[in-house]
């Protein structure tokens, strides 16, 4: 009996001693960028991908966007405006707007001009060129391209919770509004993201 207890105690001590001697405390595994990884239930890269792909497809397929180029003989010029976060999470909406901007620009269906926050740096550089760059290479003043449309949008959430189960639904909208006439040329919404989150009440 005594020997058996000693053996068990020694074994437990040995396990405790060597358990922390793993080669590295951090394990990193690279996965495909489109792998779905839901850890907390909050907004993540998978949601961003689903929402942006849906909105981009919607926008690029819009008849009115295509018609603008045909009617005016040039591509519409778009500026990114406020993309409001009306959710209950701290979501960086600039990632979403940049994805939309990149996809639409690369599609060749619209041109973009620098946004309100970006253009002050561009203007500073242009002003700096007037005194420091050669006359031939300095960018001309008062030659900015005015935007035809402003892209705005919002992210909102509806949360419901009872016991250890909660649901989170995301409503993302985006729209292109004519700066001159206030007419909306395109509106898109995505409410595909709905998550049911179950929190375990016990762990080992």
């Amino acid at each position, binding site marked *: *009996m*005594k020997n058996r*207890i000693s053996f068990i105690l020694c074994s437990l001590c040995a396990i405790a001693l060597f358990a922390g001697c793993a080669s590295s405390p951090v394990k990193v595994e690279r996965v495909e960028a489109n792998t779905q990884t839901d850890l907390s239930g909050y907004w993540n890269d998978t949601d961003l991908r689903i929402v942006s792909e849906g909105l981009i497809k919607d926008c690029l397929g819009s008849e009115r966007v295509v018609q603008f180029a045909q009617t005016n003989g040039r591509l519409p010029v778009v500026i990114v405006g406020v993309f*409001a*976060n*009306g*959710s*209950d*999470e*701290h979501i960086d909406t600039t990632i979403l707007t940049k994805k939309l901007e990149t996809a639409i620009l690369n599609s060749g269906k619209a041109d973009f001009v620098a946004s309100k926050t970006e253009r002050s740096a561009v203007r500073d550089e242009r002003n700096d060129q007037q005194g420091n760059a050669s006359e031939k290479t300095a960018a001309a003043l008062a030659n900015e391209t005015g935007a035809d449309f402003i892209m705005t949008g919002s992210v909102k*959430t509806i*949360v419901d*919770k*009872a*016991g*250890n189960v909660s649901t989170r639904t995301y409503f993302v909208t985006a729209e292109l509004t004519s700066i001159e006439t206030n007419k909306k040329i395109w509106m898109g919404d995505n409410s595909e993201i709905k998550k049911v989150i179950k*929190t*375990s*009440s*016990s*762990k*080992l």
Partner: protein
Amino acid sequence: MKALKKLLLPLFVCGLFTSCASTSHYEKIDASLAAGDYAAGLEQVRAAKDAAYQKKDKVLYYLDEGMLAHYAKDYGDSTKSLGTAERAIEDAYTKSISAAVSSYLVNDTTLEYPGEDYEDIYLNAFNALNYFYFQKGATEDALVEIRRVDNKLKFLSTKYGTEITKAQSAVMEKSNDIPYDSEATRIGFTNSALARYMAMLFYRGEGKSDDARIDRNEIKLAFANQPAMYGFPLPSSIADELEVPDGMARLNVVSFSGLSPVKTENTVRIPLGNMHWLKIALPVITQRPSAVARTEVTIDSGEKFNLELIEDLGAVATETFKQKAALIYFKSVMRSLVKTSSSMVLDDQSNKANDANTALLLGVLSIGTQIYAEASEQADLRLSRYFPSKAYVGGINIAPGKCSYTVRYYDASGRQIQQARFENVEIRANQLNLSEAICIK
């Protein structure tokens, strides 16, 4: 075998009392706060992190650190700490099975501290202010925090429903003699006037007058529908908040004073006869008195206005603890019944034993079990220490431009006990001009 007993017994005794976390650091921090030296209080809590807060007290530490950082105007760090506390509260919902078993054998201090509901709600309110100050007046992230308060309040009324019913049934199956207060399971806090006030200001600052009006009305509803927590007049300045004349600006001042309540132990012993008793140790929310009786704002140009009470955080803490207290009560009764029943069974077997040595051994074990029940039954008194007890608000319409003003705190005898000075603050029309003053006395 004797050697093993010698080893295990002290370990067991240690295990019983290791849950008693050190609280001596609070005295130094309290003194710093009373002196208005919030930066010192923040340094003191950080210095005490390893010695005074155990791993299972993560929520407690980050709440204390987050609030002290807020008072010290370190809004970036306060946001991080309160955010960490919020995530730790979410994580603590999933309880360790071993710790849960220990809590049924020993007491609730063996569990990870999960945070109280009022802490979970107000950490977002203070984070809203943190975001507003840290982002120099931007309100988008501040409003995210206010929405989180709203979601938590919606969930609160249903949070403990089934748990309480289950616990009640379990106790009733064991004994019919345990008193049960059905009122304790009802919670009356569903709307925070303070959170609504902040939302009203943030929306007004964004020019969203409809949203601001909705929240202004919700402040009135919070007062009308929750008299237990709002047993004082609606701040008169609320009526003027959305009536700013063209060309004028509005200065708003929010003030926090006093310290949030603490938990004290209320012990009940129910005699069961033959030297046996049921010990139930319950945590009770106990308010800490505040010396502040009146808060006045004086603008250098001569205008004065009093700040008015909008939220009694201590009263909310008491109300929101009612449901959890009911659960703790049922669990304590169950645990104490098990401990005392074991002692009574051993006592009974001792009386029936034919052999004198066996009777003596069982008798000693019975006494030991009752002593263990007495010693181990302790209330879990953990609660963050540095939320304020009261929130006051006020506002005035003034001409835009630079403005200097003083917030003065007076006690009940009219003596000034502290002041906060604001120099050359730029007051702008059509935006939120919000200042915050603190008096932890």
